């Protein structure tokens, strides 16, 4: 088929259609810009608010001084200490964890063609949490200490391993003849989540007071454990996985129509699925290692983005990366200021917002006939 149909009415409709498409593209660009500005605003708030307030100018001054610049404004040594060793690592951790959880959610939703998928749903988060719980509770029994491996290393490493084992297991169970069946994969994830839940429950039952307190950190999630040493291992992994996920945008778009359809459209389906699984496992494993199980970010952020900017993964994935970071920083602000001087686990904050959001989503989707 080629050549235009010489009908002026058709030409008009065509022009309107083309204009609409262009307008939506500009809107997506503007949306990403607004998100970037919002993200910067959240970083400023996250750095500035707390027991020791730090203004943006003071923060810039503190950051610039070691680079040889003249101090822009006066700041106290306490502010300097708080920024470098508390606020900054915590903000970086929040950005990374929120970003990769949201992107992982978007990638999994594309992979499963199911808008309700989430890193927690497929069992990755809980696989990682179970491995971490084993280390926390059985620390005295495990040979890490005798091998000279510190707890700060053993914990993240075991969480990575747990996430990888979980996703590999789900993928192995679900794939047949070199193809992964989406429904089986989803059900395997459900089963794995249940098993990990049972394992964690048993460990909670077995644990003493100190271990129980540490376990709560994993079960409810918190950014409080942020420090540069821990970020050194997991930070680059999260950043790399988040950026690698962006390259999956087009094939994920195709995959939404079904695996065979995507194949017919010219996409390398098996490769896309493998990369998606690996990227998600790495990102979520690293995130859980540093901040525990934080639910609903992977569900909420992609949905909010889709509502405003549409479902195209080329916009959705970068928007989720930024939006997840912003949301996480805001949730952390609430978590560490609402019950001063104590701190609420951030997982409680995200669940308080995410649970009702999930229910609203279910009702709304049914009303729209989108099942």
């Amino acid at each position, binding site marked *: *088929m*080629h050549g*235009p*149909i010489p009908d002026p009415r*058709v030409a008009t*409709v*065509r022009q309107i*259609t*083309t204009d*609409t*498409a262009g307008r*939506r593209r500009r809107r997506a660009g503007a949306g990403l810009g607004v998100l970037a500005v919002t993200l910067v605003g959240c970083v400023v708030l996250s750095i500035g608010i707390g027991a020791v307030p730090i203004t943006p100018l003071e923060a810039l001054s503190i950051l610039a001084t070691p680079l040889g610049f003249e101090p822009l404004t006066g700041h106290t040594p306490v502010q300097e200490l708080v920024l470098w060793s508390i606020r900054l690592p915590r903000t970086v951790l929040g950005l990374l964890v929120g970003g990769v959880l949201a992107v992982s959610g978007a990638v999994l939703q594309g992979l499963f*063609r*199911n*808008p309700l998928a989430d890193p927690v749903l497929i069992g990755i988060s809980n696989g990682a949490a179970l491995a971490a719980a084993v280390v926390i509770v059985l620390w005295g029994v495990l040979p890490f200490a005798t091998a000279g491996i510190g707890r700060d290393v053993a914990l993240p490493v075991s969480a990575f391993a747990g996430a990888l084992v979980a996703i590999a297991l789900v993928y192995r169970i679900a794939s047949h003849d070199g193809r992964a069946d989406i429904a089986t994969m989803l059900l395997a994830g459900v089963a794995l989540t249940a098993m990990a839940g049972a394992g964690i429950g048993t460990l909670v039952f077995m644990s003493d007071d100190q271990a129980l307190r540490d376990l709560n950190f994993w079960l409810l999630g918190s950014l409080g454990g942020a420090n540069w040493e821990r970020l050194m291992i997991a930070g680059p992994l999260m950043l790399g996985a988040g950026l690698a996920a962006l390259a999956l945008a*087009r094939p994920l*778009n*195709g995959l*939404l*129509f*079904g695996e*065979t*359809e995507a*194949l*017919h*459209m*010219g*996409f*390398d389906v098996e490769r896309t699925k493998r990369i998606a699984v690996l990227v998600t496992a790495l990102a979520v494993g690293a995130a859980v290692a540093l901040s525990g199980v934080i639910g609903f970010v992977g569900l909420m952020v992609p949905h909010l983005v*889709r509502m405003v900017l*549409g*479902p*195209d993964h080329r916009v959705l994935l970068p928007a989720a990366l930024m939006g997840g970071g912003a949301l996480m920083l805001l949730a952390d602000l609430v978590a560490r200021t609402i019950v001063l001087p104590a701190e609420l686990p951030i997982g409680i904050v995200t669940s308080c917002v995410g649970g009702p959001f999930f229910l609203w989503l279910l009702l709304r989707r049914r009303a*729209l*006939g*989108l*099942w």
Partner: protein
Amino acid sequence: MLEGRDLTVIRRGRRIVDDVTLDVPAATVTALIGPNGAGKSTLLHLLSGALAPQAGTVTFAGRPLAQWSRAALARHRAVLPQASELSFPFRALDVVRMGRAVHAGRSGRDHDAAVAVAALEAVDGLALADRVYPTLSGGERQRVQLARVLAQIWTDPARPEPEGAGRALLLDEPTNNLDLTHQHQLMRFARRLADEGVAVLAVLHDPNLAALYADRMVVLADGCVAAEGPVEAVMTETVLTRTFGLPVTIQRHPGRGTPQLVPS
């Protein structure tokens, strides 16, 4: 254009497709008919390259599918699925645009956008452009999908494909969810594409619909080709009665004279 030689697929000891040789020539509509479970969809997936046969080869434009890169093949042959569900609120035009994904980096964004609009226009679907895909009716969705596959193999005379090959369109029971009007609309469109040189293969349930729009018919029964040839040669009482196990009588279409079956 698209040829399968000695194709065999065995699953759990059953020969789903049994030594089938089939040619889908350029500029014709070839209809693949047969009873449920005869292996029609499996054969279509063999020809599209989605499924590898245990024995036999598929060639497109004279080259085995294995020698085609995934992307080059997708620029020359497209497949319209039975029905496409989509649980995300894409607009119809975005769905059509996805057909151009395989051309990314080869043709400009503006050109791809123009092709998508033209493809939607070709299926008389411009009015659907800004509608949300999951809210469309079955017939509207199938039209949008048709525009998508059309955009995928759309050729631009100014930018010929380096492979220079022709185009093929495979339709997998495309009329399953369509009402009478849309069934005929879709088949008329397939006919038009064939007249422009595209090799069209349509898996169809209804021999009468096939006889009205196809040039050639292939009858598949128990994984084997039971009959093959021009419509006149295949639409006979003997062939159809034997294949479908239902006694039929052949009559002539009052307007076009093509053979049509009625159960006797």
